[in-house]
């Protein structure tokens, strides 16, 4: 499993308790996790998906992006 793959999965696990649309968020995560990309690209893809989603899903994705950034920032600092 690539780093990016693991980052998005860990991020999903952390934000799941806070998500309003957990099923939809899981689907999005599965799709993106399937294509292992660099974290910046994952964020960009999530942003492009957000545009077409309902407002509450958009917030869930926004939280997911935030968490990915936290993880990436944490990895860089260690």
């Amino acid at each position: 499993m690539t780093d990016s793959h693991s980052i998005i999965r860990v991020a999903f696990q952390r934000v799941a308790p806070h998500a309003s649309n957990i099923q939809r968020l899981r689907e999005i995560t599965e799709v993106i996790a399937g294509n292992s990309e660099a974290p910046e690209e994952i964020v960009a893809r999530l942003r492009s998906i957000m545009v077409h989603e309902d407002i509450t899903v958009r917030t869930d994705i926004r939280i997911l992006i935030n968490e990915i950034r936290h993880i990436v920032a944490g990895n860089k600092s260690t």
Partner: protein
Amino acid sequence: MNAFDILDGEIIRFLSRDGILFPTPIQERAIPQLLKTEDNFLLLAPTGSGKTEAAVLPLLNRLYEMQAESELFGFYVLYVTPLRALNRDVFKRIQGLCEHLGLSVQVRHGDTTQYQRRKQAILPPNLLITTPETLQAILPGKRLRYHLKSVFAVVVDEIHELADSKRGTQLSLGLDRLERLVGKRIQRIGLSATVGNPDDVGSLLSGPDRPVRKIWAGYDARQMQLDVVMPQPTDDDIVMARRLHYPPHSTARLRYIVDQISNHNSTIVFTNTRSFAEVLGSKMRGLDPSFDFDVHHGSLSKDVRLAAEDRLKEGKSKAIVATSSLELGIDIGQADLVIQYSSPREVRRALQRSGRAGHGVGRKAKGLFIATANLDDITESAVIVRRALSNKVEAAAIPERSWDVLCHQIAGMLLDEDRLSFDEIHSRIRVAYPFRNVTREELERVLDFMIDRKLVKKEKDSIERWGKTRIFYYERLSTIPDVQQVSAIDITSRTGIGVLDEDYVSENIEAGSLFVIRGRPYRVVSIEEDEVLCAPAGESDSDAPRWIGEMIPVPFEVATEVAEVWKRTGQMEKNRVVPWLTQQYRLSKEAQEHVIEAVAGSRQCLGKLSSKNRIVIEDFGNGLVLHAPYGTKTNEALGIVIAALLTTRRGVDVAVERDPYRILFSSSERIDPQHVLDVFSEYSPPQVSAVLRLAMKNTQTFSSRFVHVARRMDVIRRDAKLREVPVRLLITIYEDTPVFEEAMREVIADKMDEQHTMEVFDRVSKGEIELHIATTERPSPLARLILEERTRFEVMGEITEEDEVLRMMEERLLSTKFRLLCVNRHWNSVRTISTLEEEVSCPICESKMILAMHPSQKNVEKILAKVSKGEKLSQTERKEYRRAMLTASLISEYGKTALIVLAGRGIGPDTASRVLRPGRLARRDLLQEIAKAEKMYARTRQFWD
């Protein structure tokens, strides 16, 4: 170079644009330190010295830098204040800068709409201004909980206000829960102008083991002009008093206030009670002043309060009559004078209130304390002014080991994390200062109680949340006593004009009643379940509604200094006293004269005056007054303990009343002062503590507190009506539980000063406090202050005013004329009551059987003649004869006092005989009873006339 120069250029540009070029002392000192470190801080500076900006500018600076590095998403800074109104004010102050920096700031509290709340869940503001209760609400929130993970700083404004109550206790655990959620240390910054014990308050903010850096600034530079005045009635005031149906001294104060308001741009007049704010507003309207003003207090609706604040700010009104609702940091703009009506009773309150004048950097706080013509009130105001000018603020009494708060926070922890071990819970609660000493046994008892109530459950080694945990937590977010309230609605506009306490409505209001709210009279049209419908009324002679919980205790330190002032005034030569009272205590000439005269009279009467080291026990025949200047809470406890021990020793009930300077004991039998000496010598401090608890258990105060605590601990439903709750039974059932313990702890901590009470007993036993017995023929002037003010701390609060009303009534009664007729027909004379001796008798035959009747009533003498001749009387004559003979019997027994009662409106001999009872001959009690009888007549006269 100043502290602003190290902030980001954008912030400096914004401040310069608004003309803010130089930091205030607190900003100068705090900004560099807050920029440099993430330590916890307590910023201490006078009201209006820019503390908010001192904390917020460096935090916004940091946020602005973070924003430059990456997009912000979540809450980063929480700004917690004790009041929603303060939230709005802080928002207005920082909104512009936040916008300028591209940062978002919003308010969230009980008034926030659902729409706004949803928006915040979707797009959280970077800086959230909120209350402690709302923070509790969002801590376990699904979405908001995530947004809280980015918080790096919490500012707690007016922290002394929270520290003094369970709100602070709850916040201390709440901040720790927040920190655990974030996963790292959060910078905590407390702000206050008036903290007497900064170390304790710092520990409350930060936890007992973490250092807090204290920054004091600006107290030296603060400009305050505080003076105590005692307006005396002029001839014009006396004329005006008749027109207003208001006592002359009160009218003089009213006129003085109106003059002061006219001579200033904008004024805040503070009263100690909501009721009196209403009375004052109503009477001021009666004077028809040339300016507009509003009334502002916590029981008025939010819209009304906001409108009043805005009107003053915009200069549309010149004054606002307010209670503590305007005390805290709300910037009401241009106020250049604060008037405090009657002693504010605490230094902290005096400073908060005076600071409202000249609220703003570089402006002078001007405060006028208007004392009533009462030795306690004048001296207390003076002492508070002196202490305020030297910044001697009372310590905040931080509630410790509050089991109701602990139950709630354990429920919160389990919502945060599902399950925790006993050890985890124990270590987590001990991180908070108020719970630092909780033992494992104590925690076990609390958890057993929670498990028993099914608030949580125990599974093997862990404590877990259960079905009721969430609802228990969310229904009890607030630790503020839950007094049920009813809305008052103006039916002409269908708008809310205020809220009334449920007990006031049920006991005092019915359709047709008049009451004053917002300084205007309203007539009750009908009373529905949750609202009182009323319509504006023209009359002004009506009651202000009363609200409970308005008593402000006078602290030990203030009371002992008041006694010291009396002592020194009595010892010093007049030419030295006057400059001393002027310079140290800022007393006006009239107020000084009153103090000097009253002290001399009291000293002459008692031989010695009481002080911190001397208690004077005055035996005036009908009771004892213990002159003990130890403040409200100490005297409350001393009174309860001594009365309980005297009752036990004598087997006869001893009633007790107290004020901050003395305690009155009365009984149906004489109380020997030696028994009080015995009580002091026979009981040790630990025994006193035990007696206090035993005695408290049976009081109404305890029952009332028990209900509040039981509501918070899920023993009583929150919405249960008080009259439906079998309180005494519940107290018995729960006697050995944390509910009982907490109610007892709360009532003793809030209402009493147990420590000083035990110290008094200890010091008496060591001979450090002298006990001096004084026997007086009639109560000394100092004793009269409690005898005539028995209800000083009752809900209406404004006893001085009530006294004056009674004095006015007494004047009216004494000026009444009666035709007096000797039963032997030797004497028939029309006389004014005031001209008579106490004992009324016939100047010719000395008979005490004197018939009293209206001066125009002349036929009674004829009836007497008929009776003496044995002639038959008509039915009407028989009736008149019976009434007249009843008056004679009352006058023979009670003398002039009987005539005073008979002079009351609608009081006939039958009613008078009910009012005149042997135990009720104290003038004040009697006048109160007459007033009651007159009211009853006024209510029922439609059935009589």
